[in-house]
């Protein structure tokens, strides 16, 4: 029974709870136990909150018994990347500089999910301040991929991906700035969504790059991901960049199929840089989409390369300012110093890891006197270029498709000596953040070469999530992979 609970998915669990087949306490206990079982190996959690989770589960059962559930998913537990502030629960952003920091407030995403009755299992490990593509930059411990524990789960939301892939949580929240949800989802064989910029409130999410960050769900199925996103999406008065209009419904037409849909394949992304195994599965995916009634045509995104350069100027520039507040004055780590400058400089030198320091330096330089126009200024213009190219593409097609990651999960330590190689993991994902579009990773099987998950990325124009979910749902259903035994990593 427990195994069925763990792999059932949130939608199925909701049905079981509704029919009284199982209680929220049972469900939550199952996930708590599984989390405990795998966490030692995988390094997924930075903070466990079993007491709060069970208290939440009991409350949910009480509400259901009284006929007043908080919502369809009342009592289904969830876990949050440690980048979401949680009132009274330590939050570190994977960094030593916030060791021991306990926020006196919660992120809007957390508040909304809590109000919907989702008990919190704990806070998930991540690359420090969301900077990384392998979760090897956590100041605490790396996260391992449940499919092969010598390999990375991807990053920066490595913990969020690994725990769902290992069935330690039915779903989880991560954030995506340049691919940090989609890429780990791809490497771990899960659905991961980066919503339209502004769809989900950033209030209470520790900022990395303000104009690129978005929170998004990890889940085993497209329907679950859409459901979790629905619980949090929508305007927030505390976030001036959140879209004021009520979001479209993501689930109503999710099973509408894709007959007549036009899907563009980015020709620049189909080249030599991909693992052959990745190329095989993704091309099969295109064939399957055609089979389901979509027409596939080739499209071109010539500026995508500039997109990476732009990303590696915009994100560090914004983060250099966003991370200036970590100075040992009001919270977090303080390393003593004779004067304020020495104290702050030592605190930051000791509290930040190498990747974070690298990006702060790069960002500070890019903004410094004399360089603004050449670096940050130009990079912001490149974004417009990319957004325009995508707009032109959307005049001809409804969605864009490509591999999420050119490779399957790589080994721990393989890329840590070469920051540039690490950055290139994001080559297919950053364009979406730069343009503010929406994108989803759907598993499309495992590589014939190494048996590791391969992911298909579907990219949609801003606020076209319903279309995106419909296509992903149709594909997933036809592929039938996620509910097979093969989709459960043997941990």
């Amino acid at each position, binding site marked *: 029974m427990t195994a069925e609970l763990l792999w059932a998915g949130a939608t199925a669990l909701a049905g079981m709870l509704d029919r009284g087949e199982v209680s929220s306490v049972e469900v939550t206990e199952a996930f708590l136990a599984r989390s405990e079982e795998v966490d030692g190996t995988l390094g997924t959690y930075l903070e466990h909150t079993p007491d709060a989770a069970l208290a939440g589960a009991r409350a949910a059962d009480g509400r259901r018994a009284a006929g007043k559930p908080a919502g369809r998913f009342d009592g289904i537990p969830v876990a949050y990347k440690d980048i979401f502030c949680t009132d009274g629960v330590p939050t570190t952003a994977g960094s030593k500089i916030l060791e021991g920091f306990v926020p006196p407030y919660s992120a809007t995403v957390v508040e909304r999910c809590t109000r919907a009755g989702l008990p919190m299992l704990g806070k998930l490990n991540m690359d420090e301040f969301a900077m990384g593509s392998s979760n090897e930059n956590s100041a605490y411990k790396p996260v391992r991929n449940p499919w092969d524990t010598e390999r990375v789960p991807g990053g920066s939301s490595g913990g969020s991906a690994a725990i769902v892939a290992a069935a330690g949580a039915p779903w989880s929240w991560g954030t995506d700035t340049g691919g940090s949800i989609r890429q780990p989802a791809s490497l771990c064989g899960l659905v991961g969504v980066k919503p339209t910029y502004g769809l989900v409130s950033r209030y209470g999410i520790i900022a990395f790059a303000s104009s690129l960050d978005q929170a998004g769900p990890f889940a085993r199925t497209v329907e679950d991901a859409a459901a979790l996103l629905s619980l949090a999406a929508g305007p927030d008065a505390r976030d001036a960049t959140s879209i004021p209009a009520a979001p479209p419904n993501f689930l109503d037409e999710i099973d509408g199929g894709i007959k007549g849909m036009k899907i563009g394949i980015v020709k620049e992304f189909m080249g030599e840089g991909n693992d052959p195994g990745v190329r095989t599965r993704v091309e099969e995916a295109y064939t399957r989409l055609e089979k389901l009634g979509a027409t596939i045509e080739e499209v071109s995104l010539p500026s995508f390369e500039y997109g990476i350069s732009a990303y590696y100027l915009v994100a560090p520039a914004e983060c250099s*300012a966003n991370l200036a507040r970590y100075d040992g004055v009001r919270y977090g780590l303080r390393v003593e110093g004779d004067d304020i400058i020495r104290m*702050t400089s030592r605190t930051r030198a000791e509290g930040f890891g190498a990747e974070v320091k690298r990006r702060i330096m790069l960002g500070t330089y890019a*903004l410094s*006197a004399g360089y603004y126009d050449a670096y940050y200024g130009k990079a912001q213009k490149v974004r417009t270029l990319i957004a325009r190219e995508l707009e032109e593409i959307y005049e001809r097609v409804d969605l864009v498709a490509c591999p999420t990651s050119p490779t399957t999960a790589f080994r721990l330590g393989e890329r840590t000596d070469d920051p540039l190689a690490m950055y290139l993991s994001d080559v297919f994902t950053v364009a979406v953040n730069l343009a503010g579009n929406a994108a989803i990773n759907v598993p499309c099987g495992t590589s014939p070469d190494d048996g590791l998950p391969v992911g298909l990325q579907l990219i949609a124009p801003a606020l076209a999530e319903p279309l995106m979910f419909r296509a992903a749902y149709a594909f997933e259903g036809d592929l039938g992979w996620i509910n097979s035994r093969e989709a459960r990593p043997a941990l």
Partner: protein
Amino acid sequence: MIKDDLFETTVGLEIHVELATATKMFCSCEVAFGGDPNTRTCPVCLGMPGSLPVPNEKAVEYTMKIGLALGCRIAEHSLFHRKNYFYPDMPKNYQISQYDEPLCSGGAVSISGEWGETRVGITRVHLEEDTGKSFHIGGGGRIADSEYSLEDFNRAGTPLVEIVTEPDIHSAEEARAFVTELRSILEGLGVSDVRMEEGSLRVDANVSVRRIGETEHGAKVEVKNMNSIRSVARALEYEERRQRDALSAGESLVQETRHFDEKSGTTSSMRTKEYAFDYRYFPEPDMVPFEPAAEWLERVGASLPETPAARRARFAADYGLGEKDVEVLTATSRVARWFDEAAAAYPGDAKKVANWIIADLYGLLNEAGIELHESKIAPPQLAAMIELVDAGTISGKQAKTVLGGMFETGKDADQVVEERGLKQVSDEGAIESFVDEVIAENGDAADKVRAGNTGTIGFLVGQVMKKSRGGANPQMVNELLRRKLT
């Protein structure tokens, strides 16, 4: 002001105005004075991780009001920028401010004084947030010799408007006049308390002196810590003299920041290095641009009160008041409104109302240490009192006493007259008996008048007034005395 043909002084001012909104610029914490430290803070104004700024609509409106009142253009498209630097009173170590797309720009304010008239250009008016407050422990409260510091973030995030003038001011006198006029405009708009002593109005100056004929600008010296309008004038006078003396002696001046010392009236160097801070400005990604709708602008423009200049012109034209009286009665919009009400309630010449306020009422106000609007007398009550004098019910002298009574009690003039028996006696019979008594008691004086020394009548009039406890109609007394003695 130093007048000579050798040097010219150029001054530009940078003024910060703390807005009197209910809440801070980017969060809903209350804005207030005083209170226990760190009790008006939240994750946003403490710069906690994950917090986000949301601009205060009222602060934007007030800024537009200020811009319009100063004759500025309101930008069609405006942005907030991050100004990046580390300082412990800065919760985020960047200040959200405005850079090259401010809310308002390109206005002007005219000032006049003994030197003539000057049109001071307003370069820009923009919106930003204030920092927290540092307390330096050890070393007498100043940073330089302190052992450590304590930070209070109650003030952090308070909306601040920055007004920058063109370098169109050329003397301390003009600077004083400008700040006075600006303060008057801002006070009339009701957007700030504009109290320099409390810090809701702050003035920094850039001063440079050069030889007349020189094409190159003199070294720009920034002067800070001027905490009153008078300090501004004193500091600029000192600085102007210092720079002229230096140049005359053949010394060269450096670009620096100088601190004004209230006690000594002098400025001293704070920072000598020609250090240009690299603020690494970039557009604030946590907010979206500001594009004021036309109807909103119209509404704000329509709600602007009369400018001090317009009011002064109206007072002179409509009330026929002289320059000095106009200045006093338009010093604040509150006083002006009070006067308008009183003048409207009085059917006669407004100059009489002006005289009563300036010559008598102000004396009472100063003694009690209160403002005009704080006194118990309402404008129509003053008007009514003057009408009693016009009607001869009370004499001018009695009126002063009546005014005092009204000031104490807030009662109407006729009530005070009734209660204190101050009605002027104009019954000839009654007065005559007083007059006869006085003549009898002051034989020598009476003889003098009979002898032709009419000047002594004044003394006798005074005696009658005394006997009648001020109640006798002085004209009648005079007439009767003349009749009886000449």
